């Protein structure tokens, strides 16, 4: 699962979707791999608009990366300097893959496992909505 996806995926339990503590999920024991992907600056700028930056900083920290700025950068793909930052973002968001690990909901405590880069969001019967 791409790092980007951690900024959008949330607990599948019905009651958790209205709770503030359920997003982002908490990431533990994650094994990361880098994967080369096509660089699409326009796409990144588009996603940056949607990104919840504080959640991004929090998940990056879970994964052992403390280097993100606290404020969301404003980037324009036509500016040379901004393109350099967009390449870094591409590297982090699109090319960083969580191969194995756990995602935990801070509201209900359910643990979602990531195996072979696929997160398992199937719910046990008692949590089905």
């Amino acid at each position, binding site marked *: 699962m791409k790092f980007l996806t951690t900024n959008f995926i949330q607990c599948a339990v019905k009651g958790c979707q209205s709770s503030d503590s359920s997003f982002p999920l908490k990431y533990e024991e994650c094994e990361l791999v880098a994967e080369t992907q096509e660089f699409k600056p326009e796409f990144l700028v588009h996603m940056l608009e949607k990104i919840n930056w504080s959640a991004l900083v929090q998940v990056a920290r879970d994964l052992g990366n403390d280097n993100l700025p606290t404020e969301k950068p404003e980037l324009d793909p*036509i*500016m040379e300097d*901004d*393109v350099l930052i967009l390449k870094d973002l591409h590297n982090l968001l699109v090319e960083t893959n969580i191969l194995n690990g756990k995602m935990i909901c801070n509201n209900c405590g359910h643990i979602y496992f990531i195996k*072979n880069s696929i997160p398992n*969001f199937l719910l046990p019967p008692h949590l089905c*909505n």
Partner: protein
Amino acid sequence: MSRPEELAPPEIFYGDTESFKYTSSTRVQHIQAKMTLRALDLLNLSPDEPHFLLDLGCGSGLSGEILTEEGYNWVGMDISPSMLATALDRDADGDLILSDLGNGVPFRAGTFDAAISISAIQWLCNVDAVGNDPKKRLLRFFNTLYASLARGGKFVAQFYPKDQGQIDDILSAAKVSGFGGGLIIDEPDSKRNKKHYLVLSAGISDRSVNLEGAEMEVSAKKDKRKLKKLESRKSFINRKKETMRKRGRVVANDSKFTARKRRPRF
């Protein structure tokens, strides 16, 4: 021939053998590709802007491969581990999520710009587990899908309804969840090639879905102001670059430094 939906639950029906058979059949590849392109045609997305898409019941990634070829980034959801494993083997570019559509779409509000589903949602009309209520599952599916789409986000689903009852159940769940739109039937008179497409919109968008020939009412009233897109994105960027250049700024792909090697910052 009986419908796959009547033989076993999806994650059992699409086990290792069937996933392989399905995915390696050139006939299946061809049909799925054709229907995916038709779904994109119905979505009618602006070619000038990037879009983040969701593929519901993505299976082994046959529909997703077309999305990649067309330049879209996507996330796929499917209930069959074997189908997803096949997608991994085929190096699908989208992220893959193992999940049951009947339990909802687990993404926060406004995540996706649009969604597609090819040959999957008829499965939601089945009772595959004790206590499953198809109407409840359809509602949960459409409600959470609606929320996960950006305002005005569109959803096109090709599906194989068993009968009119399934069409009615699907349309009414979509409507109750707030979607506008309807059903398009391609080649309605051909027994073999007849195809059903659900064409929906989550609120009003500046480019509506391609509803030529749809048979249900559409939420009309478009925002006139949004409609006047006078300038294409490309010419806008070029004009902006020119302005920046005049101000003596270094704009992208103008610079000899573009390819220099450096360490990532983050």
